[in-house]
């Protein structure tokens, strides 16, 4: 009697061995939205405690990288950026590229870095990488501000740069970069819990990827110089984002709606695969990490 009654009762939730194949539990993430904002706040507030230069560190890295790229690739190797100042050309690519890599790098060790806290208390794990992607927006914002500064400087000096109607789509590129970084980061963080090999792969893989993503050269150049291998860059969704960024901000290079559509589709797929893998891992990663 009693037993039968039990089975009819309403249970709030069940803890079971495995998730259903696709279970996102977005409702739960929404319940923990306060935690998300607190994590973002924590990341932003604590990152510069006890540093002298503070957020200036965010500026030094892209500026020096752009400077070196300009010297090596444009002055020494002679890559032609047309009428656009090479420094601004590089800075545009590096700024958006940095947002992607910081999202990827910071999310890819989510499980490993937070093992202590994940091992003690439950909350939807996905809150952690999402908060990283959001707080990295601040870093991107600072770097983008310095880009705008140089943009105005070069504009006043009379460089041939201009915005166009596509500039309005720029926020879409930021979102794509965020979600791509998040998706890939979640996949890698899940793999790293069991096989540490992947964390080595990320650090040098990202560097290699930069060369394949048209960060320091226009896309047309690679098609022109090595048409046989240009497909590597053509099929790389990141290359489209970089190329489109420069088109939207500097009116240089090419933009294809098909390319953007392709990039968006890849991003959505990567993001959902990431969520799936991440959700599967979060249930028992603490046993293997």
């Amino acid at each position, binding site marked *: 009697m*009693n037993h039968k*009654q*039990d089975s009819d*009762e*309403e*249970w*709030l*939730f*069940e*803890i*079971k*061995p*495995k998730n259903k194949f696709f279970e996102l539990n977005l409702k739960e993430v929404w319940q*923990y939205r*306060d*935690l998300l*904002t*607190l*994590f973002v706040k*924590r990341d932003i*507030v*604590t990152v510069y*405690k*006890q540093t002298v230069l503070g957020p200036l560190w965010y500026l030094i890295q892209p500026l020096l990288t752009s400077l070196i790229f300009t010297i090596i690739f444009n002055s020494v190797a002679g890559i032609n950026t047309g009428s656009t100042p090479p420094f601004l050309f590089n800075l545009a690519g590096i700024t958006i590229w940095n947002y992607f890599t910081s999202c990827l790098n910071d999310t890819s060790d989510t499980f490993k870095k937070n093992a*202590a*806290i*994940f*091992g*003690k*208390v*439950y*909350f939807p794990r996905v809150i952690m990488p999402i908060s990283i992607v959001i707080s990295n927006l601040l870093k991107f914002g600072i770097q983008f501000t310095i880009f705008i500064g140089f943009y105005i400087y070069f504009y006043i000096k009379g460089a041939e740069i201009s915005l166009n109607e596509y500039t309005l789509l720029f926020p879409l590129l930021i979102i794509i970069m965020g979600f791509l970084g998040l998706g890939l980061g979640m996949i890698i963080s899940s793999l790293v819990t*069991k*096989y540490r090999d992947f964390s080595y792969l990320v650090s040098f893989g990202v560097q290699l990827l930069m060369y394949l993503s048209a960060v320091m050269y226009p896309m047309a150049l690679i098609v022109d110089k090595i048409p046989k291998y240009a497909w590597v860059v053509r099929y790389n969704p990141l290359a489209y984002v970089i190329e489109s960024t420069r088109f939207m901000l500097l009116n240089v290079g090419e933009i294809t709606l098909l390319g953007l559509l392709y990039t968006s589709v890849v991003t959505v797929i990567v993001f959902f695969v990431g969520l799936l893998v991440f959700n599967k891992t979060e*249930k*028992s990663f*603490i*046993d*293997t990490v």
Partner: protein
Amino acid sequence: MSKNIILKAENISKQYRLGQVGTGTISHDLNRWWHQIRGKENPYLKIGDTNDRSIVGSSDYVWALKDINFEVERGEVLGIIGKNGAGKSTLLKILSRVTAPTTGGVKTKGRIASLLEVGTGFHPELTGRENIYLNGAILGMSKNEITRKLDEIIDFSGVERYIDTPVKRYSSGMYVRLAFAVAAHLESEVLIVDEVLSVGDAEFQKKCLSKMGDISKGEGRTVLFVSHNMPSVKSLCNKGILLEHGKIIKDDKIDEVITKYMTNDEISSFEYENNECGLKSFEILNSKGVQSINISNGEDLTMILTLEIKKANPDFGFCIAIYNEYEELITAINSYHINEKIINLKRGQYSLNVVVPKYVFNTGLYTVNFHFNSISGVIYKKMERITAFNIYDDGYRRGNKYSGLWPGKVSIIPNIYINETA
């Protein structure tokens, strides 16, 4: 009547792989995956040793938990006890959703908040106030809930003065106080607490214990409490489960479970030089002559020992040592001091009744050690914790006026003679 069950564990099992993650792991993973896509059962679930760390097992897989079933009613405080490695932490991890069970599941009707550690997620650079918000949110509270309880939390922690100082400047005691204060104000229906009370000074520990009591008794919330500290388990919990090698070996009222836990050694025969003598059994009876582990302080306690003597030995004795729950020796009963005759027992089997009169032991848990020894004091065979018993208060001394814990290690009712001298 139907029971108001808030949490139900059904056949929880948890398998762990031993050794290191390496090349062997990937082949097992592939094999598991190959079985899975063919719709077959995970091949590694069939194998696995029970969880006994002292024995070298034959398999790489062990069951940290195996077929755990229990129910918890609303408002109940369930004590989970067991030795190190019995599976307590694994069980808590599953209940607090930190890790998933290999098979089986848990059903619950309330929010579960777990306190496996105090101060999870505290950031050293943030101030006390900021950390209250962060830690509270990690434990599942909303911002509004925390704001509503902020004053209460700060007040409970007793660190008002430092609340806007980064917690890295805190002493470890202040840190723990603040952390526990947040946790104590969680509003979940089920609260899981792992030995967090072993931190902080005595005063704060007392405060924590009484807060835990309030949570369960006053607010009617359910608490699952894990600790090695039997006095606090006994005072907080009303039910208990005892884990051993990943299995529940006792699920009962807390006193019974603690007594079982405290009873350690199997009674074993003494095999010294041609198996001269042995202890066959050791039982504790109440004043009605019924075997029991719950004895009132107002009744005689009888210990019945069955001894077997295979060879008479004048240089032979035994000792019963009784310890309280703080592991303090309360009394030792030695055969020489009871009766000279025992030493000269002839070959045969004997039953000894050792009667401890009423009003000797104060309330609490006691364990019994037994050993055979020689007159000169050489211990031949030591049996630790062969049994345990619980003394409860009969209320006689109190006269229904005082309801607190009766202080002292013994409970003597002295004779008091009053002579008027002036």
